[in-house]
């Protein structure tokens, strides 16, 4: 009986890709471990950027809205991170990045990129770098909610030059919340349209808030900003416009 069963089972033909399938099974095992590593790395970074995104663009701090934001994160962002982690794991396996030294280097690069972005975001910058617009593609700007507007490139260049003398650094939201803005007597806001993009800045003597490519709250390191300069420019140009009509 024993020999008969063995004989019968030996008749089963072995397919050519058996070896390949065994290796795929092992790679699947390795891939899953990589997936979990990348997923764990992506989650805190996704949370950081998501929280900042919501604070910037949806400042309504109600309990219901916060609950919706959390729900959206759990239902949409986390599955997206899982999807990304899987893709990165497959990429790493294909490139042999899961072996020894290569894996460590790959992991370091993966962690270093978001850290580098965060550090760059928080380093000192020139104000014209933060309120960044292309004077060659300048369209128009408004100061103090349409009290004065201009579409002249020389005005844009003059204002950009004015901004370039100040150094700023990004500040945390809670620093801005704690700060008493009533202490700052002078203030202006500016909306710039350039190259199809809009940049809005609310500028105080020692603080400013920006909505645009580098949005966020900033403190002025070599302030106070000379708000009178803008006020004088607006007044001069306004008077010129009045007289020319």
């Amino acid at each position: 009986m024993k020999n008969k069963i063995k004989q019968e089972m030996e008749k089963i033909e072995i397919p050519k890709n058996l070896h390949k399938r065994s290796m795929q099974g092992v790679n699947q095992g390795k891939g899953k471990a990589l997936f979990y590593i990348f997923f764990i790395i992506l989650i805190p970074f996704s949370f950081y950027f998501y929280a900042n995104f919501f604070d910037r663009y949806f400042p309504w701090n109600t309990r219901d809205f916060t609950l919706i934001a959390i729900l959206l994160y759990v239902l949409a962002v986390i599955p997206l991170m899982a999807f990304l982690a899987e893709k990165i794991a497959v990429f790493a396996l294909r490139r042999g990045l899961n072996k020894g030294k290569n894996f460590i280097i790959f992991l370091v690069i993966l962690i270093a990129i978001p850290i580098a972005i965060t550090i760059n975001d928080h380093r000192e910058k020139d104000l014209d770098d933060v309120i960044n617009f292309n004077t060659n593609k300048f369209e128009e700007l408004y100061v103090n909610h349409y009290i004065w507007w201009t579409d002249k490139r020389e005005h844009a260049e003059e204002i950009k030059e004015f901004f370039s003398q100040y150094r700023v650094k990004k500040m945390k939201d809670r620093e801005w919340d704690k700060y008493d803005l009533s202490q700052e007597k002078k203030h202006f806001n500016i909306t710039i349209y350039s190259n199809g993009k809009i940049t809005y800045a609310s500028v105080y003597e020692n603080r400013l808030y920006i909505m645009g490519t580098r949005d966020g709250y900033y403190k002025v390191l070599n302030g106070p900003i000379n708000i009178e300069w803008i006020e004088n420019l607006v007044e001069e140009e306004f008077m010129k416009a009045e007289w020319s009509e």
Partner: protein
Amino acid sequence: MKDLVKKAQKGSDQAFLTLFQRYEEDIYRIAFIYVKNQNDALDVVQETAYRSFKTIKKLKQPNYFKTWLIRIAINCSLDLLKKQRKLIHLPKEYEDQLTEELNDDIELDLSLQDLMEYLHPDEKSIIILRFYEDLTMKEIAETLEMPLGTVKTILYRALAKLRKKMKRGDDDEK
């Protein structure tokens, strides 16, 4: 082999692959008996490789690597059949356990088709482990985590089924 298992348990995927590929043909053949087609049998082999690679650290006795692997292969095959809703549980009468020793060394003119078509998956497991892998009844009971009496009952009934089928075949020929 013990050294290879130890290396595999320490994380060497090359050592694991070397070990696995020694038995992959046996695993394929066993899977084929359950699932009856090449594609599913290859899926079982891949899944067996994956599961065994993930859990090799749990293997306490390296000498039983092959038996352990076969148990995983049988479980993967049964899981696939369950997923495809092709698995039917053994009737209650199988729970009656035989305690006496039985003579299973009976000459049967058996075919592959008989193995695949006429036996229930649990019966296949025991026939394969007994007559293809040469395990003792006690070893089969440990591998399949079944009481020894149940193993004997299932084997006895599987053999009876095959004998009955053979007798019917002989009668048809006459």
